[in-house]
């Protein structure tokens, strides 16, 4: 895709004039003012387009999001209200060669994780062979001993995974973390693509972007493939905690796109170990539950007894094989950031292969030597609580105060199992529209991996942006935003 030749000096725009590179990998530029080949189209557009036009496009996008009601709830603020998801207009572009590696790496990863989960809930060979320390697994809050010996359809524990990737200064993609418990963001990915097609049709057409609209269909196929044996035309539902959940928009969106019923715990009832849905036409049997409710809340008889979001008896129906839950119960073990540190070993052990996508160097605090090293150099590390998501419970060394570091030191020493540390990474940066100008901001990438009869990965995923200048925190709940991700043919 060659951009037409143009006189750079004549067309370098005001918008790009302040764009400066630092040591981070820049998605658009390989050197000052020199765009990478796959970004030339966008660069040319940015130089050519008057600021007013860009502003108008942004407004169109915002209105579109508003009308579709694309919102999320931010906790910890007074309103706790819905806000329109902050979206940056400029797409993040990935070449097909780069994507091919990512795809192979993620396929390898989800395959290994499923084998790992099957093993720890059955024979436990990898524990006996000390690939992962036994106490690490058993002390994990999300390890569910109730799942020992429980058979799951097609031995697939994790069917929907969102893995966060970051790009290092040398251009390599590495895995930052896996999200196996209700990863969200798919609806933003799908709706922002629709908006982008409307705003940048020419750029889109000329670039040759791979489509992603088949995600709902692929998800439905995945869910169907995991139905209990012998169920003709399985009844698939999406279990949501309800309207007050921050991801409720996504639940309704996906249910609608897939054409399945959106249910809450109180709509379901279990009788004789079979799950039914209460409808005006009577009870209707349920075969597959795409559950966006955490393990803890899914069945007050088996887990937290104070939960009102779940269904009493669900676990027994599950164990009897009369209903499939996606993801399976107990997959949170592989979500644990301390277990994440062992995934490269897991891949080698179960698949006999080297990991295609590497992990970020990780220090587990339960190891005395690693803990000491981290505590001595706390300013250089990012410390994370193993079970948290959304960017909470995190210390960013270089941006922290002495007081914050002292607080974390106390936490780590009190409960080392609950923390890991990683060196502060210089995440790659991508051009963003900030106050009418184009400026670089740190980004990550969250592709969504589906695993049923086969592994399906929709090209791209959600690119999350740390909107505040210099910030490394991309999570939406902490004021991050998103970009459309384009994987080229």
């Amino acid at each position: 895709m060659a951009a037409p030749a143009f006189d750079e000096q004549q067309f370098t725009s005001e918008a790009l004039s302040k764009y400066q590179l630092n040591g981070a990998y820049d998605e658009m530029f390989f050197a000052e003012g020199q765009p990478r080949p796959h970004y030339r189209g966008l660069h040319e557009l940015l130089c050519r387009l008057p600021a007013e036009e860009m502003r108008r496009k942004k407004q169109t996008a915002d209105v579109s999001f508003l009308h579709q009601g694309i919102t999320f709830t931010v906790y910890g603020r007074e309103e706790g209200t819905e806000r329109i998801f902050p979206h940056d207009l400029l797409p993040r572009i990935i070449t097909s060669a780069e994507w091919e590696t990512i795809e192979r790496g993620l396929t390898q990863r989800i395959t290994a994780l499923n084998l790992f989960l099957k093993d720890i809930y059955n024979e436990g060979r990898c524990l006996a062979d000390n690939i992962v320390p036994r106490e690490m697994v058993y002390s994990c809050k999300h390890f569910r001993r109730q799942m020992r010996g429980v058979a799951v359809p097609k031995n697939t524990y994790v069917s929907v995974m969102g893995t966060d990737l970051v790009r290092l200064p040398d251009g390599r993609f590495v895995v930052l973390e896996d999200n196996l418990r209700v990863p969200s963001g798919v609806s933003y990915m799908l709706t922002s693509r629709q908006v982008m097609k409307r705003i940048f049709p020419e750029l889109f057409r000329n670039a040759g972007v791979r489509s992603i609209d088949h995600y709902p269909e692929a998800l439905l196929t995945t869910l169907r493939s995991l139905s209990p044996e012998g169920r003709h035309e399985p009844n698939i539902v999406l279990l949501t905690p309800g309207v007050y959940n921050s991801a409720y928009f996504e639940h309704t969106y996906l249910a609608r796109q897939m054409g399945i019923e959106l249910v809450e715990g109180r709509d379901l009832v279990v009788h004789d170990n079979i799950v039914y849905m209460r409808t005006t036409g009577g009870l209707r049997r349920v075969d597959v539950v795409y559950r966006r409710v955490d393990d803890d809340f899914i069945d007050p008889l088996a887990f937290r007894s104070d939960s009102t979001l779940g269904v009493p008896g669900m676990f027994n129906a599950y164990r009897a094989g009369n209903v499939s839950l996606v993801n399976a119960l107990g997959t949170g073990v592989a979500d644990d950031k301390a277990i994440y540190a062992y995934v490269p070993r897991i891949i080698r052990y179960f698949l006999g292969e080297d990991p295609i996508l590497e992990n970020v160097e990780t220090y587990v605090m339960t190891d005395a030597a690693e803990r000491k090293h981290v505590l001595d150099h706390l300013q250089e590390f990012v410390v994370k609580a193993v079970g948290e998501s959304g960017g909470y419970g995190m210390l960013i060394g270089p941006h922290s105060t002495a007081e914050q570091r002292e607080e974390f030191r106390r936490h780590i020493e009190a409960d080392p199992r609950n923390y890991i540390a990683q060196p502060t990474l210089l995440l790659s940066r991508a051009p963003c529209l900030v106050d009418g100008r184009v400026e670089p901001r740190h980004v990550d990438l969250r592709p969504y991996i589906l695993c049923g009869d086969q592994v399906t990965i929709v090209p791209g995923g959600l690119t999350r942006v740390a909107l505040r200048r210099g910030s490394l925190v991309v999570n939406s709940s902490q004021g991050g935003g998103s970009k459309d991700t384009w994987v080229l043919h």
Partner: protein
Amino acid sequence: MLSRVADTLYWMSRYLERAEHTARVMGVQLNLMLEQDPRSADRRWIRLLASLGHPDPVASASDPFALAQTYTSRQITSGITAARENARQVREQISSEMWEQVNRLFHEVKRMEAAGLSTAQPVDFLGFIVENSHQFQGVTDSTMNHGEGWQFIQVGRFMERTSATARLLDLYFREFTHPESQPVDSSEHMEWIGLLRSCTAFEAYCKVYTADLRPDRVAEFLLLNNEFPHSVRFASDRMQQSLEAIHLIASSKRTAQVAKLAGRLRAGLIFTPLEEIVAGLADFCSGIQQQCARIHAALYEVYITYSIEAALQP
């Protein structure tokens, strides 16, 4: 559809209809009191409160007017709030226009309450409620698919209307001596206009019977007229139609129960001779309310709160 969703839509609709009715009744009464005998004012407010379901209006207040003001304003606000909350729970089932309408109505009502407008400018406030309730009904009819969900909304609306109208009639006829085929005297004249206006029926009545107000004709119009939307007959017709439609869509074996009860109510309104009704009008009206309660209970038992055992029986 999910039982919970049917339940939610039904109550959203009932709450809105209730708020509209309350607002209209109150608005009419405020308008009439300007020309009515102030000595009988207390009696009228007590009657109004009783018709709107206040448990004991006689004993409750030394100032029935003030009580009526606070009671109705609270009923309206809580009704709109509940309707909006219900709409929110099933936002995916209603059209976005419906949601916007009820949400906007809710926020406006809250604003007006906070600004004290319900007491300072009651007529404006009450008129606003009625107008917006009409708008919601219009939006619902034209933007929502007339499927099962819409039918449950109709059942809620007409169930509430049947009940409320019957109760209003009941109280009016208890208070005034047996209606005869004679025009009313001038002191009672306004009361009957009030009753008709409370059901938006004055102009329609006049078209059918002229401005000659006779209690038996008022009873006939409000109970038996099959063309006027606020008559009990019309409401029960629509209720039965919607229940039939639901029966066809939801196809449960036990729906015969609900259909029978609705059919019986309707038959009573079609076939009972007017003289018989008029002779025992208060009883006839309370009979209607009881039948409504039974239909509501059956509706719930068949479609919503049925036990598992009942549902799994062959």
